[in-house]
């Protein structure tokens, strides 16, 4: 029985450990204990998507998850998407399409889109809309986000084609 423990997990490819209290959410720990600022708490209800991360390759809302349960998992955040200076194709597509304004929700959208394309390389408009229905952008860059998904999908397909 405890309200404090050490969690050990993989964060963007690096093995890490941290002492956490029972009440601490994942987004709090990422922000305050790992100084990662790309994962952001906004609505606190798992419905805006600003705090999206991957836990064991699955997108989750880090505001609704207790850090306690990260123990033994593989966590990826927006900071872990680019390979050094080389952006992920989804990140490139977001720039190309101008798929953001203030940028606060952008990490979450990019994480969701990347996951969508990993499951479905050529999603229909309807599939994109439904998948991203749980991400909110108050600047309303939605039309450009739709463009970005298509650009990213095309990039991924052309990379796949180019492979021998």
């Amino acid at each position, binding site marked *: 029985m405890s309200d404090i423990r050490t969690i050990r997990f993989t964060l963007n490819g690096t093995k890490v450990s941290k002492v956490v209290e029972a009440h601490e959410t994942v987004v709090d720990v990422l922000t305050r204990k790992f100084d*990662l600022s790309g994962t952001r708490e906004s609505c606190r209800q798992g419905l805006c998507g600003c705090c999206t991360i991957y836990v064991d390759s699955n997108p989750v809302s880090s505001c609704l998850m207790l850090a306690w349960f990260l123990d033994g998992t593989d966590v990826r955040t927006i900071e872990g998407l680019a390979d050094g200076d080389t*952006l992920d194709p989804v990140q490139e597509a977001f720039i190309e399409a101008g798929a953001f304004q203030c940028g606060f929700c952008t990490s979450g959208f990019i994480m969701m889109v990347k996951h969508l394309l990993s499951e479905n390389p050529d999603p229909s408009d309807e599939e994109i809309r439904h998948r991203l229905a749980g991400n909110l952008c108050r600047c309303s*860059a939605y039309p450009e986000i739709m463009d970005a998904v298509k650009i990213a999908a095309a990039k991924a397909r052309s990379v796949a084609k180019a492979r021998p």
Partner: protein
Amino acid sequence: MTEVFTSVGRSIPRLEARDKVTGRTEYVHHLRLPRMLYGKIFRSAYPHARIKSVDKSAAEAIEGVFRVVTIDDIRTVIPHPYYGPAFHDQPILADGKTRFSGEPLAVVLAEDPSIAEEAAGLITVEYEEIPAVFDEVEAMTSDVLVHDELKPASTFADLKHLKGRKGTNIALDHKLLRGDPEAGFAKSDFVFEHVFRSQQVMHTPMEPFVSVADVTGDRMTLHTASQGPSFVRIEIARLLGWPENRVRVKVPFLGGGFGGKLYIKLEALVTALSLLVRRPVKISLTMEEQFFMVTRHPCTFRIKSGVNKDGKIIARTCDIAWNGGAYADIGPRVTQKAGFTSAGPYDIENVRIRSSAVYTNRPPAGALRGFGAPQTAWAYERHMDMIAEEMGLDKVEFRRQNLLRDGRPQASGTILVDAAIEKSLDKLLDIMKWNQPFDRGSGRIRRGRGIAVGFKGITSPTTSVAIVNLYADGSCGLFIGTVDMGQGSDTVMAQIAGEVLGFDPTTIKVIHSDTDVTPYDMGTLGSRSTFHMGTAVRLAAEDAKKKLAELAASVGMVPGSNQPISEIFERRYGMRAGNVIGVGSFIPEYQKPDPETGQSLKVTPFWGVGTNGAEVEVDMETCQFTVTKLVNVADIGRPLNPKLALQQLSGAGIMQYGFTTTENMIFKEGQLTNASLADYKIPGLLDMPREWINEFTDSIQHDGPFGGKGAGETTTIALSPAIGNAIADATGVQLMDLPCTAESIFQALKRAKA
């Protein structure tokens, strides 16, 4: 002859794009300072109540609580703890009584925010409830007084006469009179009168309000998500009785603002707290708490028009009550600015306007993307359609016949210049294929379409100052107080400087607001940045260019030679040293309106113009409807970055689409019932109309920087009435109140049948 530009007019990506897609953008949201305390606000439970006592003991007993603060503590560091841009009416924490449910009443400070939150839940307050007033029309004559005495800020000359006024909830009455409306009605063939209402809505930026204050020695440094750092500095210096140079306000990027993060919000509170404890203090609101910070004014608008048989509008009166909530914020300015255009973009000889800012026991209302113009257009453009409908006039031709055109005086007397109203309407009709047959649906599905025309004036007179700093290696820093909250101002300002200097705009570094470093700007608001700051940047760049040329001449270099800039500095200073600093300062021409008639020869520096068209599909059984097409056309002068400008039109339109169909702050006896994104629905991807078209007219603002002007609000103005008009066209029933919902159609149809 067309001018050729190298920098402006190009759709370059945002300068900060890479940071935004990698999660590295700097926001106050995640700022932490050494020894920083977190503040958690305890809020009042009643809309109107005397505070008999506050029991802090249980909160103070929690381990880790540093201090629990009420207004009595605040007074020890700020003796007169009242603030506000128009009225000094808002206490830093509730003072003796609470004026809306959710008002900050105490703050717990702790190193761990979850401890502060837990302790805040342990504060108890003994209240004595007093009668409250919530409706703006009722409040105009109610015995319930939100404030015992009006306390206008001395900063605005036009409010001084209100000082000390008692026994009223009307903070400000804006009046306009042109011609003789009563005589006009008397000689009109028909007179129409309607009442329209707009609901209370909120900005809900994804980055909730957040401010950090850090007092060290005799300096106060604020890191704040603010759209108006210069005003924050002025107001904090006033509250503290300090000279402005001891207050420093720094603003990085904002996670959205939309008018909410203007003037002064959390800054006074964190300043007081930091002074009290001599440590940095941060307060971050939750999404829920944002609804108690600032909102958009609900409003009731009674509009009356006299029209001749041939469709000419002879006279119009507008009586508007703006529900400002418990504190005036910038409501008085909303009341004035939206007031003087509230008769619509029409050429009417006889106009009377009375626009009143009213106190009620609701959360305060302030600026929100459009400064009141959308609420007025909801009324005047629905009114236009209803008149046309009743008189059997063509809705487009009726408008066209009465439209204001360049060279004609607007209701304020200011002559219309560079306002492409008709051009915008024509383009809209063209995109809507208005003259082609329209499928009106069949069976239970009915289709309808509607258009609306809107315009707005711009807050005036306001000042922007810019500095261009050319470094000795030939690179350039641009120092401006304009805050980039997503609109792309960094990029466009760099494009303007780049155009003058002949620089690639992507190489120019924009230095963000830091009042120790960046010069004065009135605020990033009301579509003013491109025109005002853009002009200041142009002037600063021209100044730098001129000085650089002088420097070159002084070292014997030929003007226009291809030698690098660094060579000039090296020749002058013997090494890479020195700077060339260009300064630009801009304030547009302005004439204060007459207080009784509202008449002025120059009431606005330019006009915002937008037209909107909607097609809807209504299921006549369930009354659920879908907006199948939305078209927004705006006159934004010359688009200085077309892609970013279109994004502004699109984003503003979708936001207003939310205010039209899904968003509504619902109160029950003064208690907000839906303060969360689960129950206050902002548009998501599934809500987007299938066809979503944004365009601008081919226009030039002759006195704007490179022909440009503001773009951030224009599509908000008349979008709601376009949808309301389309719903009326489809269903035959008239919606008078926002938002337009399935149930409101259901109820209207029921009334129509009865």
